[in-house]
């Protein structure tokens, strides 16, 4: 394959993400303090004497640093779990709908569109209310099963356009089975989109988790970045100026969201050459129109809920013709 030119932006994003991962994965092994252990009083200021006190104590006299590293781990767990669930469901539905076509596709996309139209925050809130005994895994699951339609839509649009490429016919004529065609002739073309969608799903899930936690629907008995903020707000740390209680989780959340979005946009530039300005190639004759960026999945209540029809319409033109008679010289 052609060597991919990763932009500096990609490397910045990658190192930020690596940093967060290291803190979340290795942090709990370095900061050995039990996040639930009371090691001081209400909002003791940070001191450099003890590792556990580097970020002071929270409203219950627990180590903020210990809570932070464990909270990052929980948030990452929720994000990855939700992202994987959403990706798997979305990929399967999108692939089947895109590749199968016909009635199966209509039904699957109908379901997808309905789920897409209902704000997922509503479903997440209702589900969380209905479930007691919430933990990180259950939350990840709940968020995952409400956020797959995005991936499904993107995958379906892409695989529909790939389905009419001639290399699929060539594969069929070579006697390849449909599963082999799906795995080797369609999936590789989708990977870039799936990767980008996954990154956004993970980031969206982490933010949704903290929003839920701040509404009081977070995991019970576990620390996440959201529950830290919940307690920090409930016990007035902002008003009393106890910055060490609310600033670390705020900054970490921002860092996670920013680095994942940066990663997505740099991947977009790599995969979607038209966004690379100044590097436009000469337009070849008869080349397929590149599909614009994957629309972002909704994070808690702030993004548009349906993919802008304009983009869909623009890309559909390249792939929708069934009567394939190109007399183009």
């Amino acid at each position, binding site marked *: 394959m052609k060597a991919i030119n990763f932009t500096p932006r990609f490397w910045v994003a990658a190192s930020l993400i690596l940093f967060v991962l290291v803190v979340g994965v290795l942090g709990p092994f370095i900061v050995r303090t039990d996040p639930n252990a009371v090691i001081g009083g209400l909002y003791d200021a940070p001191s450099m004497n003890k590792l556990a006190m580097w970020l002071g104590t929270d409203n219950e006299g627990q180590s903020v640093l210990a809570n932070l590293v464990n909270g990052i781990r929980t948030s990452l767990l929720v994000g990855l779990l939700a992202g994987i669930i959403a990706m798997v469901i979305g990929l399967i539905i999108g692939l089947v709908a895109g590749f199968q076509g016909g009635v199966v596709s209509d039904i699957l996309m109908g379901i997808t569109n309905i789920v897409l139209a209902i704000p997922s925050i509503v479903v997440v809130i209702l589900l969380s209310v209905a479930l007691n005994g919430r933990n990180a895994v259950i939350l990840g699951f709940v968020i995952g099963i409400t956020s797959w339609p995005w991936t499904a839509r993107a995958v379906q649009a892409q695989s529909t356009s790939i389905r009419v490429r001639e290399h699929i016919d060539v594969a069929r004529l070579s006697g390849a089975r449909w599963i082999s065609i799906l795995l080797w002739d369609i999936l590789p073309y989708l990977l870039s989109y799936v990767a980008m969608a996954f990154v956004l799903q993970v980031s969206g899930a982490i933010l949704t988790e903290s929003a839920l936690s701040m*509404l009081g629907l977070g995991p019970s008995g576990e620390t996440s970045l959201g529950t830290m903020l919940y307690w920090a707000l409930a016990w007035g740390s902002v008003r009393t100026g106890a910055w060490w209680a609310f600033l670390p989780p705020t900054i970490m959340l921002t860092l996670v969201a920013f680095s994942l979005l940066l990663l997505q946009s740099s991947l977009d530039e790599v995969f979607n050459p*038209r966004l690379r300005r100044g590097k436009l190639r000469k337009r070849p004759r008869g080349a397929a129109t590149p599909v*614009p960026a994957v629309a972002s999945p909704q994070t808690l209540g702030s993004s548009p809920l349906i993919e802008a029809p*304009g983009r869909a*319409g623009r890309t559909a033109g390249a792939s929708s013709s069934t009567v394939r008679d190109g007399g183009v010289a």
Partner: protein
Amino acid sequence: MQFAKYIGRKVLWYLAALIVALLLNFILPRLVPGNPVDAIVSNMSRGGGATGEQMKAVYNNYMQQFGLDKPMWEQFLIYLSNLAHGNLGTSFAQYPASVNKLVGQALPWSIAIQLPAILVGWIVGNLLGAVAAFRGGWFDRGAFVGSLFASSMPYYCLAILLLYIVGVKLGVLPISGAYSFGLSPEPTLAFFGDAITYWWLPFWSLVIVFVGGQAVGMRSMSIYELGADYVNYGRGLGLRDNRIVRYIFRNAMLPQVTGLALSIGGIVGGALITELVFSYPGIGTTLFNAISQNDYPVIQAITLIITVAVLAANFLVEIAYGLIDPRIRAAQTGDR
């Protein structure tokens, strides 16, 4: 008439989505183990103050209102008929306050911080994104990274930071509530002048994030359009740059207009946490209280309103698109 058919199909889809949403809204709170009315009544009795006779009346009232002694399908019909009458029920936690009243009090505050933020953010963000795409160079780089950062920032994180820096550290704006203690909402200049000081912080925390998101979107749409053949042809015909920019906008704007409409649709549930951070008495704070008090009627009412607003906005957008964009119209009606 093809277009009527198109609208008809859309109506059916959104009706289906609405029914699914209603079902979820109806069923999920009923999955909570135990009878919610039992729970709430025992809660009330523990607080003392209510006699057995009163408890009995309250219990009967709830049982009748929700029809909890009846089969599920009948309960659902009761639920639908209540909704059809615009009756969202009675609050558990603040008995006998009606949910309509609680939500009605909260809604204006949510709209007051969000609608201006969405409109201002949309206009500024689109201008910024379009100019960045067209100008290129350092301006583009700066605007893009800045917008990307602003848009990626969780809006409640920005709210917390603003609250701390501007409200607590600098102490220039009030940090909690929507108006000063002792005042009550009334249409006077004095009240307005007071309330606006409370309004600034939540507004800014939303508008900055929104500007970022719009700018990023507009920039990539514009860059995409800049590479289009009609741009090159327009230049070849000697059109002025501003004329070509107008063509680009026209095409790049369509998805952005959708974004605006959908954001307005998301207005009810768009900034729940912002309100929590600033203790602003809107829907978010109401929801937060309801969750902490297991006030299911209020939770249900809020999720329902969020859903209906979003569905309505989506629906209007699709209809508007069918009217505006000749390409969509052609694709839908088979006109070639």
